[in-house]
Every structure is written in structure tokens, then in C-alpha cells.
């Protein structure tokens, strides 16, 4: 009865106006709406204009010219293709390695905390520092990795300056930094797996792989999806490490869409076109997020 009354007040007040709660929330909601929607509508308007910075910012309506250009621009198209490749490689590798490392750490009987602390270290570094570290280690004159690869006869060219190795190198830097996040999330999921069920399966003679497939995997599927969502959102706007290491080169082999967006906005100051590219990235992010939210919903985990 009391709950029903509260629910009724929350929906509307007795005289048909806004409830007390809504009235109290309204200023904050309005502020949030202004903070969220004003930039969004502003950037949409920018994408429909040619923007000039001379003598103060000015707009010259260009209709859909920036959008048409974006869909026919082969440099932007290639940047999207590379971003997709980068996205699949980083998120894929991070998920595989992260889950594998988490399963191993979960099985440790002693030294678990020490191992976990060491594994998590890269995650606490700023991406720009990871980039600088990567650049240092792969430098062809004094870099450790470059030296080892050269001495082993595996790779003798400049790692970040060669088309075939630059993208794998920056992907591995990202994987090195963010796999620990997946480890952490998956470990949290593993901790919640019902140990009684595991013990019962062991008694019934289930092998490790069978327990993994039929008990552990379904139990951690939700958190793995959340981890996937978090890393996917990050991977779409990956910027720092590439800027510090390769600046998109050599020969554009590491120029993914956020790098092209930055270049268009803050190097060419073609702000109208940059707005269109940025909105394209936003739409893609929303679509990816929607896919994951639907997966979570289908498992009853979204609420």
C-alpha cells in the first residue's frame, strides 16, 4: 500500500502537475540537457556549414556537402577500414589474452595477489607514456625490442617505420596496456561462479574443459560482454599511442579514423567536414553499444 502510494507520487502529483521528485530533478535534468544537447546540435549544424575562423568564427551554409564528401572521400574510407581492422585485432586479442590470463590467475594457489599486481601495472600508465615507452623500445638505434629482433634475425628494418610492422606494433602496445583490464573484469566474474556447482561437477567427473564450457563460461558471459563493451568504446577513439609513435604513418598504415578526424579539425581547420566525420564516429559508437546492450538484454543483464 505504502509502495503503491510512493509510486503514484513519483509519477505525478495529485493535481496533475509535476511530482515533487520531478520538480527537484528538473534543474539538473535541464542542465544536463543543455550540456549534452547544445554541443550535439551545434556540431550537427557545423557539419552542414563551411566554417571559417577568420575574424571570429562564421558559418556559411553548405547543405549536405560535407556529408557527401565524407561518403566519397577515399582517405576517410581507408581510415575507417584500418580502424575496423585495428578494432577487431585489439579487442579480439585483449579478450582472448585477458580471459586466458584471468583463468590462469584464478587457478593460482599462492602468489595470486603478487601476480595480479604485476599484471595490472600497465593499465595504470597514461596511454601517451605507453606510446613513448613503445617508441623507445622499438627505436632502431637503441631500442631493446629492435635489438633482440635484429640479433635473432627476425626483423631488421625499423619497426615503427615499416608498413608491415607499424600497425601490429601499435596494436600490441594497446593490447599490452589494456589486457589487464579484461583480466580484472573476468576475475571479478570468476569470483562469482558458484563453487558448489564446480565441486559437484568435479565429483561427477567433469574435466577442466568441460567445467569451463558448461559452468564457467555461462556464468561469466555477462561480465565478458561488459568488458567487450568497455574496450570497444575505447578502441573506437584510440588516439594517444598512434599520435606519439607513428603519427598515422608510415604511408598512412596506422592512420585510423580518430587520427584523420584530429588532422581535419586541428591541422586543416576544416571544422565543418571534421564535424561530419566526428558525427560518423558517434553513430558508429552508438551502433556498437546497441549491439552489446542487446546482447546483455537477451541475457537479462541490462537492468
Amino acid at each position, binding site marked *: 500500500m505504502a509502495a503503491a502510494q510512493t509510486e503514484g507520487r513519483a509519477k505525478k502529483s495529485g493535481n496533475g502537475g509535476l511530482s515533487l521528485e520531478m520538480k527537484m530533478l528538473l534543474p539538473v535534468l535541464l542542465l544536463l540537457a543543455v550540456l549534452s544537447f547544445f554541443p550535439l546540435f551545434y556540431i550537427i549544424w557545423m557539419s552542414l556549414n563551411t566554417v571559417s575562423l577568420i*575574424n571570429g*568564427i562564421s558559418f556559411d551554409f553548405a547543405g549536405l556537402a560535407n556529408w557527401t564528401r565524407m561518403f566519397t572521400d577515399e582517405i576517410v574510407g581507408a581510415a575507417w577500414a584500418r580502424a575496423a581492422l585495428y578494432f577487431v585485432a585489439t579487442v579480439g586479442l585483449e579478450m582472448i589474452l585477458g580471459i586466458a590470463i584471468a583463468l590462469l590467475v584464478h587457478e593460482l594457489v599462492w602468489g595470486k595477489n603478487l601476480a595480479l599486481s604485476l599484471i595490472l601495472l600497465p593499465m595504470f600508465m597514461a596511454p601517451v607514456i605507453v606510446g613513448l615507452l613503445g617508441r623507445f623500445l622499438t627505436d*632502431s638505434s637503441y631500442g631493446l625490442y629492435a635489438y633482440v629482433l635484429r640479433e635473432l634475425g627476425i626483423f*631488421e628494418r*625499423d619497426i615503427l*617505420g615499416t*608498413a608491415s610492422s607499424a600497425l601490429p606494433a601499435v596494436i600490441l602496445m594497446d593490447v599490452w596496456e589494456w589486457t589487464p583490464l579484461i583480466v580484472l573484469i573476468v576475475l571479478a566474474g570468476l569470483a562469482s561462479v558458484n563453487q558448489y556447482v564446480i565441486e559437484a561437477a568435479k565429483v561427477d567427473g567433469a574435466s577442466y574443459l568441460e567445467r569451463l564450457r558448461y559452468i564457467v563460461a555461462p556464468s561469466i558471459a555477462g561480465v565478458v560482454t561488459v568488458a567487450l563493451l568497455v574496450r570497444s568504446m575505447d578502441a573506437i577513439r584510440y588516439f594517444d599511442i598512434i599520435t606519439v609513435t607513428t603519427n598515422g604513418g608510415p*604511408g598512412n598504415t596506422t592512420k585510423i579514423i580518430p587520427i584523420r578526424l584530429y588532422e581535419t579539425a586541428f591541422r*586543416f581547420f576544416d571544422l565543418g567536414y571534421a564535424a561530419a566525420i566526428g558525427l560518423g564516429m558517434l553513430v558508429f559508437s552508438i551502433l556498437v553499444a546497441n549491439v552489446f546492450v542487446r546482447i546483455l538484454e537477451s541475457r537479462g543483464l541490462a537492468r
Partner: protein
Amino acid sequence: MWKQYSGTTLNFISENTAPTAAIASNLQPFTDLTGITVNVLQLELGTMVQKVALDIGSGEGSYQIVYADPYQIVAPYHDALAELDEFNEDENLPSVPKGLEDFISTQLAAAGRFADENKLYGLPYDCPTMIWMYRKDLFEKYGDSMSQDLGFDPTPSASSTWGEYYQIAKWFNENQDEVPYGTGHQARQYDSLMCDFSNILWCYGGDYFDNEVVSSLGTVDPGPSTLDQPEALEAAAFYKKLLGIAHPGSVSWDWNATDEAFRTGQIAMTPNWHEFTAVDQDPAESEIAGKIGYSPLPKGPARNANMYGGSSIAINGASPVEEQRAAWLFLVWATSPDTMLMGMKSDVGGGTPTRRSLYELPEVKKEMKPPSDMPNLLTYDAVSEAWKPENIGLRPKIPSWNECDTIIYTEVSKMLADQKSPEEAMKTAKQYFDDAQSRARTLASRRMEVA
């Protein structure tokens, strides 16, 4: 006259260059002279350009004094800069000491003007220029062997050719083990790659546009690009061949990394910015201090070309008029012979003057030979040759240069990464240049309509 704006505070935004470091560390003489306080913000060039562009866009003019890179600031934003002639001719303001004629003429046109020779937007402030830096000790040690093997005198000079440079570099690769490679280049996919490639492009008779004023005064409409012409294709092919024997790290080096490789003994020679001399000749920073020789860059079939990278300082046209006039006092002071001399002597400075008269002073001439307290002057013989109108290398001064710069260094990088042949790279660059120009023309005509 100098005290009329006493109490004013000005903001000077600059690239983190040697002259600005020197001025920032010794602003008291200016404050004593004018009563004006100047806040100096020093940033990496790209970040500085962004801040200036956004400040111009805001219409506020918060940075009254701007380090005006001719290609990234003056060309695209000249309409937002104050014209300096009216200040220089104003009887109530001090004029440029020794007159504008005292600035090196090629630098005044390149760094200070845009499109119209009667409009001055900036006063030349610094003048880094690419020259040939080489290990004098190694050339002395191996000179005879090289001469015997190669059949020519390898001593670097203005009459050396790029073909000879290639052979010398190859000789170092194959015949000695004191340095790992003969040559190294700033060939990262970055502005530095455009600078390095342009020297060779011009030497072979190629150019970005067939336009007489595009490289000196600059223009809004340079016409179609000429990067698809045979001379440009030949230059690109040679550049690829040269990078094939260069230190493999070259493809990920910008100018800082290239100089670091040179001063840590990784390479025997390199096309390098002359203002790195200060650090290269510092025994605390360099393994090769006292062992460096300087020459203008080699010549090609058409000419000798040495990339000029100087800038001016300018006044933000969006700032209030009184602040603009106060800023003029700073411009006059900062580019005066006395202040430039002070900068050369500064412990944190080490720039190179843009004034002719300074190079005639006995105390400056004395420093052109080692040992020198002003190490950049050790390059004077090379850079004075490089600054001659027939030898200076000036990139196009057009409003869309930032985009064109990105196009050329991306396509050359693709060529070096074996993704495109020299011909494909140059033809694609030409097509993209023309597309960028087409957009710039449309934008300019819309602005005209609005105006």
C-alpha cells in the same frame, strides 16, 4: 614614445624556439624600457598553431603577439593579422631600427608578407635553414680513400651534387665501422619529411606549383600542381633510392630524432636544420662536438636548394587597438639588433639573427670560427650561401598549405614504404593538391561574396 603604454599586459604565444627562450629569460630590459609586462607562452609548433587559430576564431585576440609561421599562420590567417606598415609609419610610435632593409630580403618576403608586397604582417624573427652537416673528422680520416674509390673529391661544398652525396653515403656504409650508416634523414610521416624531400624536388627542377610568387610572397590561387611533371618524378625516384641506403631508422625520425642520431654517432652526415648546431656543439649533449663540418646542401641537375624554416612575429588583428600598438613596441624591441645580439649571448638562447647588420659586427664575426660562444654562427658560411635568392628553398605559401603539406608527406611516405611507385605517389599528390586548391578557391569566393 616607449612609455605611452606603461602598465599594459601583453601575451606572446610562440613556438618553443631558441630566440623565444632567450627573450623569455630576459624580459626585464623591455619592461624597464616600456613599463609593459609580457607573458610568454612557449609551445610545440602544432599546438601553438591550434591555439592561435582558435584564438582568432574566438575573435578575442587574447594573444596580442603571435609567432607567425609563414605557412601555418600567415598564409591561412593573414586577414586576421594586423598590417604593420601603419605602425612603422606612425610618428607617435618607434619605427624599425635600421629600417626594414636591414632584414635579409628573402626572409622579409617569405616570413613577413603574403600575396601583396605592400602589406607587411610580420617582422622576421628566426631563420632555421637546412644545410649539409657532416662528420669533419671522418671526412678528414677517410677523404683520400673515398677520393680514390669514388673518383671525386668528397669534401662537402656547394658544388657537390646529390649523386655524389649518395655515393659518399654508400661508401660509408660499406667501408668503415665508426658510424653504422653514411646518411640519415628526417623521413617520418610528418612535416619533416616534406622539408627533406623538398630540397631534392627543387634541385631536380621540380616544384609544387608553376607560379612565380607562390614561394616568395605567396598567393591564394597558385594554379594546378606540377608534381606530376617529369622533374618531380625523377626527384621522387632519387629520394627513394637515397633513403634505400640511409639509416633504417630514418623512416621514423623527425628533425629532433635525426639530429639526435647525428650527435650520438649513428650517421656520418645528414641534411639538418642549422640551429641544431648549438646542441650538437655542446660536449654535454653531443658525442661529436668539435667534429662537425657545414656546407650548403648538394645541388641537383637544376639548382641548389636549402629549405628555409624561418618565422616572423606578428600582431593579432582581433586585439584592441591600444594593445596592438603596445604589441608593436614589443615587435620593434624583439627584432632589434641589440635584442638579437642579447639572444645570441644568452645561456638559454642560441638563435640566429635575421638582421644583416649583426653579421658585420666584429664581435659577431669573431664567433664564426671555433672556438665560439655563439655556436650557430659556425654555420654562417653555409647558411649565408643558402639564403641567397638562387639557393633558398621556399615551400608554397598558400592558405591550404597545412592540407597540402600533409598530402605530400603522406604520399612520399607511401612511396618509401613501397606502397606506391614514385610516379604513382607524385601523381596522387598532384590530384589531391588540386582537390585541396579547388576547395580553397570555393571557400575564398564564398568569403568574397559574404564580404
